[in-house]
């Protein structure tokens, strides 16, 4: 929609219609001390040339790819985005991705969502996926809500302490004001979740474990599932890096009831943290308890294939306050991006790409080991791992920033016990030269 500012004539006509003399009269109900007295301090308007120069200067001030070599992951991953994806996404047919209630006029969008669901279900190895949620963190919180809905009268959920700390904080925000209790499972010396406490937790509705976890370590989802199921609780397999399943066993093959997480890796730019894509998939038994939109394939009166919103009776426009979730729109455009990305890269491409991520990460690990840097955990990883840098690297970290290298994420703010520990991420965007240079800088 184009933006037309109101003219003085428009404003006068509207004031006349509502029967108010001036704009000041219209706002008279707003208390005096809530109103701004001074004009906004805005800079002078710039010419287009000046503005471009200004914006470029701002962007150069930030540590972003490709100017910087960024070894950060921790929930947001730097992946190459095929030009075909960016191009297709700019087509005007897709620019309004709002909920397609009307199948008569929305077959294209509905089919795209259906393809997205199919691709997600296949990648995760689950029976059925929804048409997306806001992001990985809210998907996890919704998975917990769904668990309470299935395991009625249970009041406790357990979350691994090596689920992304930001996700845990979102879960906390959801449940802190409620009667439900969140129990955190500690991590073991090998960097994976300590599952031994699960058996002791009362009124347990669900257990959430992330794999690869925040430290990059692969978790034993099978055992986590067995421990949860022994308590008649659900297992939620959470993830921040779905590309890992190009190489690793997908969550579905290891028995979780719900698999959910972040889909940013699938062709969505990092954009300094958002928008993301909440991927959400469940076992078929739970499809009616699953939050969010679901698109199904059906036949029309002439027997032709068509796509419609299905099981919509679970949702809030019909079921009001008893709906399966309060997600009213979804990340339609981001889901579409992920579908385009998965279709462009293909099954073999995703496998190759995942292999490349893992191999490059292993190469860096090996070179760092040779250089005397200690790995914090010996558990297998995908494209992220934790290193323990020698003391004094803090100064070096700053120095490297000056050389346009972001040498990983310091873990102290999230895990005070992990001084000098850094989470490093290596994706396909890094070359061997980049990795060699990083090792040389760190050990020089």
């Amino acid at each position, binding site marked *: 929609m184009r933006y037309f500012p109101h003219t003085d004539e428009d404003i006068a006509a509207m004031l006349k219609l509502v029967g108010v003399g001036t704009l000041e009269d219209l706002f008279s109900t707003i208390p005096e001390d809530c109103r701004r007295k001074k004009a906004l301090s805005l800079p002078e308007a710039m010419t287009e040339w000046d503005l471009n120069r200004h914006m470029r200067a701002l962007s150069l001030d930030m540590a972003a790819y490709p100017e910087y070599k960024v070894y950060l992951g921790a929930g947001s991953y730097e992946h190459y985005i095929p030009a075909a994806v960016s191009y297709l996404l700019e087509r005007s047919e897709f620019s309004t991705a709002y909920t397609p209630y009307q199948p008569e006029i929305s077959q294209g969008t509905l089919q795209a969502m259906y393809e997205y669901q199919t691709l997600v279900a296949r990648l995760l190895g689950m029976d059925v996926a929804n048409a997306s949620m806001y992001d990985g963190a809210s998907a996890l919180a919704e998975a917990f809500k769904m668990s309470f809905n299935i395991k009625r009268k249970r009041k406790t959920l357990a979350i691994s302490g090596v689920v992304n700390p930001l996700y845990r904080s979102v879960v906390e925000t959801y449940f802190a004001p409620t009667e439900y209790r969140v129990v955190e499972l500690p991590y073991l010396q090998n960097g994976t979740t300590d599952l031994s406490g699960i058996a002791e937790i009362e009124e347990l509705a669900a257990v959430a474990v992330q794999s690869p976890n925040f430290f990059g370590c692969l978790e034993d989802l099978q055992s986590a599932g067995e421990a949860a199921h022994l308590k008649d609780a659900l297992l939620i397999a959470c993830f921040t890096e779905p590309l890992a399943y190009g190489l690793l066993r997908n969550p579905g093959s290891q028995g979780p009831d719900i698999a959910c997480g972040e889909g940013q890796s699938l062709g969505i730019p990092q954009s300094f943290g958002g928008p993301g894509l909440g991927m959400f998939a469940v076992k078929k038994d739970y499809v*009616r308890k699953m939050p969010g939109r679901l698109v199904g394939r059906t036949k029309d009166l002439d027997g032709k294939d068509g796509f419609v919103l299905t099981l919509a*009776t*679970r949702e809030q426009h*019909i*079921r009001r306050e*008893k709906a399966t979730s309060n997600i009213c729109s979804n990340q339609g455009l981001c889901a579409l991006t992920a579908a385009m990305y998965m279709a462009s890269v293909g099954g073999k491409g995703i496998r190759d790409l995942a292999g490349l991520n893992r191999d490059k990460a292993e190469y860096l690990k090996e070179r760092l080991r040779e250089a005397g840097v200690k790995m914090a955990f010996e558990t297998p990883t995908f494209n992220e791992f934790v290193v323990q840098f020698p003391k004094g690297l803090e100064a070096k970290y700053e120095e490297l920033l000056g050389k346009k290298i972001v040498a990983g994420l310091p873990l102290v703010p999230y895990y005070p016990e992990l001084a000098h520990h850094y989470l490093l991420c290596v994706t396909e965007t890094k070359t061997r030269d980049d990795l060699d240079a990083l090792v040389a800088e760190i050990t020089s």
Partner: protein
Amino acid sequence: MKEITELSFPEDVRYTKDHEWGKSVDGKVKVGISDYAQDQLGEIVFVELPEVGAAFEKGDEFGTLESVKAVSELYMPVGGEVVGVNSQLEDSPELVNSDPYDGGWIIEVAAGDASEMDGLMDKSTYVEELKGIKP
């Protein structure tokens, strides 16, 4: 949807304002929904049943019925423990439409307080109640 006169309301069951019925059989109470309720809901495609052994108070929600146009909650006509569920409904939910008082029963309850049945409506009171809803 049908007129009230076209619907069937047996004498041997008792009705609730939420349109469930209860029927005493061998010391237990069978529970289902009335012909009026199934007619209002339309084609029922899924019945969410409680687990056997679950205990509820009178008026508690014990399950849901999903029709092509809505999901409705099911409420206990009397309090007690669920001792049986109609597992045929898992594959044939349409029995609730075609045979609401017999093949389409939903759960069987061991009532905590048998006198709660007396508080439910008989056929004539229920039909009067329906006339109030539906002119």
